[in-house]
């Protein structure tokens, strides 16, 4: 009988986090990059919940709430920025925003 311990969930979270991080590196659509950030935050949430269960602590679940709020706030601002940029340039590819460099 294999018990699914918190470690399993946290390993999964780690994988998801890594995928999200990798996504930032490979994509150039601002929206999708942003989704990757959401993916990473969700991985964090899973970690919190799983760890909280193993530790017998509610703090993990409480933390998830705040991460959620932060994610929501980020979404609002991030999408506003993307919309504002699209308003002027008709693109969501951040590759086209690479004037500043060096």
């Amino acid at each position: 009988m294999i018990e699914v311990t918190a470690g399993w969930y946290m390993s999964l979270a780690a994988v998801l986090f890594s995928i999200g991080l990798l996504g930032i590196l490979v994509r150039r659509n601002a929206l999708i990059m942003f989704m990757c950030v959401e993916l990473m935050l969700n991985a964090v949430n899973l970690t919190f919940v799983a760890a909280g269960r193993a530790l017998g602590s509610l703090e993990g679940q409480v933390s998830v709430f705040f991460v959620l709020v932060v994610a929501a706030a980020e979404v609002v601002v991030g999408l506003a920025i993307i919309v504002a940029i699209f308003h002027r340039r008709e693109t969501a590819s951040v590759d086209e925003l690479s004037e500043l460099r060096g």
Partner: protein
Amino acid sequence: MILAQVPLATPYVSWLAIAPEIVLAVGAAFVLLVEVQFLPPIKRLGGLAAGVLALAFAFSVWQWIRVDELLSAAGGPDVVNQLLPFGQMIVLDHGSVLARFILLTVAGLGLAVGWQLFERLGRRGAEALALVLLATSGFTLMAASTHLMMMFLGLEVGSIALYILAGITRDGAASDEAAIKYFLLGSVASAVFVYGVALVFAATGELNILGARAFLSGTVITRPAVLLIGLAMLVVGLAFKISAAPFHSWAPDVYQGAPAGVVGFMAAAAKIGGFAALIRVLHTAFPSLLDEWAPLVAGIAALSMVLGGILALVQDDVRRLLAYSGVTHAGFILTGMVVGGAGAADVWFYLMVYAVQLVGAFGVVAVVAGATKGPTPIASFGGLGRRQPMLALSFTVLLLGMGGLPLTTGFVAKFGVFQTAWQAGFEWLVILAVLASVVGFAFYLRVVVAMYMQDDDPAVLQPRRLSRTVIAVAAVATVVFGLLPAPLLELAANAIPL
């Protein structure tokens, strides 16, 4: 029924401990509402914001006095509660109050030197003002927090406000680019930070910094991989905020693209918040792992000084130059952290000094940017010594201060962190750092050369008296406290974390 079953232990509420933040938040809301309701001229709102900052500062002074009282008191549970109110989420100690002093000062100076921008923003100026106030409150909370989630929230409050400020003018490609880059990379860094929080939580069962410290000092962790990865992520997330190499790549682009009027504030506030948090994380939570993280911090410091210095050498835009110089400064300040808690005083002094210089310097940049309609190549500072002698002199003092020339605060600050690091046995880092300071002179002098030794740029500058005065004050402070640093040093010496 349930309430009866679970007697709620009301946390200790200390209004004084969060009075500055309350003032800032209420003030911000007030600014927004007044703007909507009365459409006052932006100048009024600016006055209002200044008043808010002043009031918050006054509360901070009160806090400082109170902390002195509490620390000298006999002790007991009440004192602990007052020092660690709100379920020990935040702390009222010298470090946090000092951070408030600095952040509030920086915000005030930032508003003054960038005032032209707020006027230019028109109706949106109110939002910008509110955001500055809110960002300030976020970073002060971050500095005061003794709880990792609280720290994360403060970080986000501050950072998100800054993302918005970076894109607030909407007047061109550069601003857009700065905003989106700052936002995307900043979000990633935040996610990394909070993942670190989660991992530390998993490894220690504690979100509270003091709790984690207690746990770590009492427990031998046999397989600390999770803890170490968590620590790494915390450090990296904060290293991003303070723009230490190799997590600095956003800084030059954002500094260059964001509206000149707020860059000084942005840069300084993020650095102060980041370092305050770093002190809490490294010095308060993980002193037991000093041997592990000290070389790491030293390595980041070294890379920051070298890479920042070398890249700053070849910049043509003053804002990018200052951004890369900011990377080197992150390195210098980190140098002071390798010793552990005792180095905090030197770090605080450095932050104090550097923040004021940075804001003052960007004030000058803002003046020039106002005349050039945006870009600030070094050549646009040509002949500033003739065109605006006082401004140029102030800028020179500030730049040399950042370079760490003796007789300025910059030197005292550098000396402080260097001697600390030397004491900690990081001689190699100090030697690298002194050499990096010389490289620093090399790029700061390029601007000085332009101002005094090269042909005039044709643009006509119209610095406001306010910003001129504030910049001059920053320069004077740089010299005066460079000669008589004792008061500030003593102030900073209090700020060694609990």
